[in-house]
């Protein structure tokens, strides 16, 4: 944990046993990745077949736009293909793909927000008001839309933390991995994971407090 524990006096470690790192290179999946890294298209196809359902689910969970899921998944696997040579087996392949997928989703949401702002900037004030009034407000919507509003809110909060923190929070909260499993999957030790998660959670709480103080930001 090094400098992290120096800055934040955490009691972690007293009960946590240090695990030996998993050697992802010398597994059957490691062999598959090495073949793909060497340019074997069949190996890459197997990687896509193995993880495409998972990637589709992650994307749908974050963006909830059925029509855009395939486009984002294509971007994810294109990125996996083009950067596979830089994959260094420090984590499992799915953890690496998960990270790329989450980043791609947040990139998509950011671009969609920018597009919306540009579109609205081209409209007159009356037109913006008309469009806003035609969109059903959270209060008037069915319970399903309330779920979407909560999802949008947590996505907004997640834009306030770093890429790494977001990735860890998603793996812990959405995928339900324990700290021990996270350590195994990411190659970090358990203490580091606990510190990073603790800090990420503190940031989320602070971001939520800020959003509550200025409610306009919640819908923005």
């Amino acid at each position, binding site marked *: 944990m090094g400098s992290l524990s120096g800055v934040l006096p*955490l*009691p*972690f470690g*007293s*009960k946590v046993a240090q695990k030996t790192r998993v050697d992802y290179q010398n597994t059957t999946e490691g062999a598959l990745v090495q073949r793909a890294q060497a340019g074997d298209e069949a190996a890459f*196809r197997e990687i*896509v*077949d193995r993880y*495409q*359902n998972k990637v*589709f*689910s*992650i994307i*749908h*969970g*974050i963006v909830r736009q*059925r029509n855009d*899921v*395939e486009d984002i*998944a*294509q*971007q994810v*696997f*294109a990125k996996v*293909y*083009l950067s596979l040579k830089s994959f260094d087996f420090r984590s499992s392949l799915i953890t690496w793909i998960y990270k790329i997928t989450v980043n791609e989703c947040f990139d998509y949401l950011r671009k969609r927000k920018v597009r919306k702002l540009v579109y609205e900037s081209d409209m007159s004030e009356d037109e913006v008001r008309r469009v806003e009034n035609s969109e059903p407000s959270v209060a008037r919507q069915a319970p399903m839309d309330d*779920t*979407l509003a*909560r*999802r949008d*809110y*947590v*996505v907004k*909060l997640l834009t306030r933390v770093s890429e790494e923190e977001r990735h860890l*929070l*998603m793996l*812990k*909260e*959405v995928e*339900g991995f*324990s*700290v021990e499993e996270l350590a195994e999957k990411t190659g970090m030790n358990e203490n580091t994971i*606990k510190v990073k*998660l*603790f800090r990420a*959670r*503190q940031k*989320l*709480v602070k971001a*939520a*407090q800020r959003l509550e103080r200025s409610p306009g930001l919640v819908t923005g």
Partner: protein
Amino acid sequence: MHAVVMESLEEYLSGTLKPAALRDIEAHLSSCAACRDEVAGMQEISALFREMAPQETIQPVPGFYNRVMRQVGGRRAAPAFASLFSLDLAFGRRVVFASLLVLAALGGYLVSRESEFPGGPSPDVVMAQQESPSFEGAPAHEAMLATMTSYEP
């Protein structure tokens, strides 16, 4: 946040804490308002993450792999201008170094030109230059007129 809570925070939030540790945390939370508030905020946000869990399975449409490979081909064929620099850092560094050299040479030239007239030519020198007759016995503009009238194509 106090150590007793921090130690087992992740297990507490995910509800996987062993009964003895759970009793310790809850005993502390009942007496420490600061920890109670902070944990409550974290629990509230933790619950929100449930909305991001996949609620239905979306199967890729057949031909997904081919479409991925088309994307790969497209990205390879048209590298962005910015990526030219990011791909080859050494090239980028050379461009920056060359630009600095050109700027330094240009700056040096301008400074040396300035030093020929430290502080610029004085007003007297300018006046003397303007008033100095280029033709003997007549002011400059008259001499110019004389030249033009005597011009024969």
